[in-house]
């Protein structure tokens, strides 16, 4: 009898465990007018944001133990817009191969991790993501030691090149080298740390990634001046925050909070003067555009499922796009990147927020 009884108790237990596991997946499907994700975030009281965590300029932990970077500031703006407090935020460090699984499984609410917008990542038949506006227009570059004599892609014939697996750079490298008909050896690593360790260990003649990432990582090298970016730009890499396709309302909220940061720069609203501008807009009923943008009138916030003053909260937390750029990757940072394509459209760049109307 003993054996039978034990079997009787373990069978339903195993079944129940399996049921619990799959029941979690069951509640994810379906989408109504209201966003499940937004409701979940409000209920939880904090936003969970997927970042790289080890990339200077974009997302890394500073000497004081706090996260900083351009991608991080986008997360902060979102937390401020949705929950009214930029501190109600939790970061998850993800490597390039983990990131999409973490997003589609619902482990993170939004992915703000220097991710390139591509067709197959966007399409429902592909990764099924929904991309917010590009927050950094980048291009793939190649970095090699200055004294190695490598000056262009052709010099890399027959040599090993370090690349992070699961990235668009891996594919672009294969494409460009095929076009040039140059044989090479791709050495793939799972994390950026391993990739750059192998490069610095001298295993690879060059390392390839987004140009901003190369510049960022180089600041951590023992001797940054010994490494130079080749002039070749291998691809377009528009980096953008991403959410899942299944929740369009949440994707809209992320999209328009991102736009708001760009629009704020266009309107000259900064972290320092946002309170002042709100007061001015309250006082002056003729500034209809500004009043709508700052949530003094109209119901933009309500339409997105966000508080009326979400723009004010976001800008007050991290400043406008220009401030975020300069602080993290521009003149105020060790990376010292040019604004380049990331200027406002009115100054010859590609940043163009659609009207808040």
């Amino acid at each position, binding site marked *: *009898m003993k054996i039978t009884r034990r079997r009787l108790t373990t069978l339903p237990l195993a079944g129940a465990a399996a*049921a619990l596991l799959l029941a979690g*997946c069951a509640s994810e499907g379906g989408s109504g007018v209201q966003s499940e994700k937004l409701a979940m975030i409000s209920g939880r009281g904090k936003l969970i944001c997927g970042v790289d965590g080890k990339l200077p300029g974009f997302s890394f932990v500073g000497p004081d133990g706090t996260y900083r970077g351009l991608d991080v500031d986008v997360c902060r703006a979102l937390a401020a817009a949705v929950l009214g407090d930029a501190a109600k935020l939790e970061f998850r460090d993800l490597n390039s191969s983990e990131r999409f699984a973490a997003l589609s499984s619902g482990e993170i609410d939004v992915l703000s991790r220097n991710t390139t917008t591509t067709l197959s990542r966007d399409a429902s038949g592909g990764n099924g993501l929904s991309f917010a506006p590009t927050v950094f227009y980048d291009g793939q570059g190649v970095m090699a030691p200055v004294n190695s004599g490598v000056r262009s892609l052709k010099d890399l014939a027959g040599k090993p090149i370090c690349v992070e697996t699961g990235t668009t750079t891996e594919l672009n490298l294969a494409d460009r080298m095929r076009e040039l008909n140059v044989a090479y050896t791709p050495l793939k*690593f799972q994390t950026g740390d391993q990739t750059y360790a*192998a490069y610095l260990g001298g295993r690879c003649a060059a390392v390839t990634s987004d140009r901003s990432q190369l510049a960022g990582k180089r600041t951590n090298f023992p001797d940054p001046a010994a490494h130079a970016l080749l002039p070749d730009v291998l691809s377009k890499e528009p980096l953008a925050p991403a959410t899942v396709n299944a929740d369009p309302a949440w994707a809209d909220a992320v999209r328009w909070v991102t736009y708001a940061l760009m629009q704020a720069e266009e309107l000259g609203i900064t972290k320092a003067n946002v309170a002042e501008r709100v007061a001015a807009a309250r006082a002056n009923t003729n500034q209809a555009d500004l009043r709508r943008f700052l949530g003094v009138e109209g119901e933009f916030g309500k339409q997105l499922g966000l508080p009326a003053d979400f723009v004010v909260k976001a800008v007050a937390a991290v400043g406008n796009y220009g401030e975020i750029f300069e602080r993290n990757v521009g003149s105020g940072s060790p990376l010292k990147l040019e604004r380049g394509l990331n200027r406002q459209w009115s100054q010859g760049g590609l940043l163009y927020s659609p009207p808040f109307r």
Partner: protein
Amino acid sequence: MEVSPSPSDSDLARTRPQPSWWSSMLSPLQSLSTNRRALPWLVQGGVGLLLLLMIAFLLANLVRNLSATGLLLTWRWLGQPAGFDVSESLLPFSPDLPYWRALLVGLVNTLRAVIVGLIGSTLLGTLVGMASFSSNALLRRLVRLYVEINRNIPLLLQLVFWYFVVFLALPNGSAALQLPGVVLAKSGLYLAGAAAHGWQLPTLVNGVWQAPLRLSVEFAALLTGLIVHISAFIAEVVRGGIASVPRGQWEAASSLGLHWWATLRRIILPQALRVIVPGLNSQYINLAKGTSLAVAVGYTDLYSVAETTLNQTGRAIEVYLILLSAYLIIDLGISAVMNGLNRLVQLRER
């Protein structure tokens, strides 16, 4: 399942006829419920049915949710061009070949690591295991040290150590480590071998080593890490096997004038094998599973290719099904071979 021959008091109480009217209606059921042979089967059947229903419900749920998100299983992507390159391959490969070819390249690379690793760790492990019975005290101590260090440090850590600390610290070009027929450089491990014009040694051509046989440092680091780690476990299995042979066998052999090596090889090991083989099985499986850590040292194994594939296609479930079944088949294959071997070395009843 034992059936108690004599019913206990409580059973008698239950079977005692009751005066109420419904007891007669329930009597067939009641007699069934008191039947000690049928009851367990009934309960088991019920639970089994419940389990089947639950599985059916979960599967239906999975299919419904997957189709809602457009992720229902499909294998068409396997025929699409992969678009990525691999660093080393025994089969010809280029980015315009389909995904299944890329996965095959990864599988072959994994099998290569498994097979070479099995041979290497068995040889090294057996030697180390035998050395722990050496009459030389220094050798015995060294062997203990080797085993304790290697089996108590995680495999991943060892792989990363061998790759980043040891192999990437090797010099390149003319400064490379040169042994007769073997050159160890940062760019790879070059071995002498048969070439078109007979036996050929590694040669330095324009600062780049050329040899008939070249292993990448990634492969070399993976193999070194796996062999060193698993051989420590195998050494323990071998030691246990040898220790299981009665002392009398050693004494009998030495009284016949056989020296240590001959005793071990001719008398002890054949008897120890039947204890060693089952233990080896699980170590071999550990080694096969351990190859999936290759991704940490940049070696293009099945897992590494599958991960790239997963990222490019987004077909998580399909890719993982392929991965799971590939490792399962490799491990079951190893098990089957080892079980066959086990039957061969077991004592036969006469």
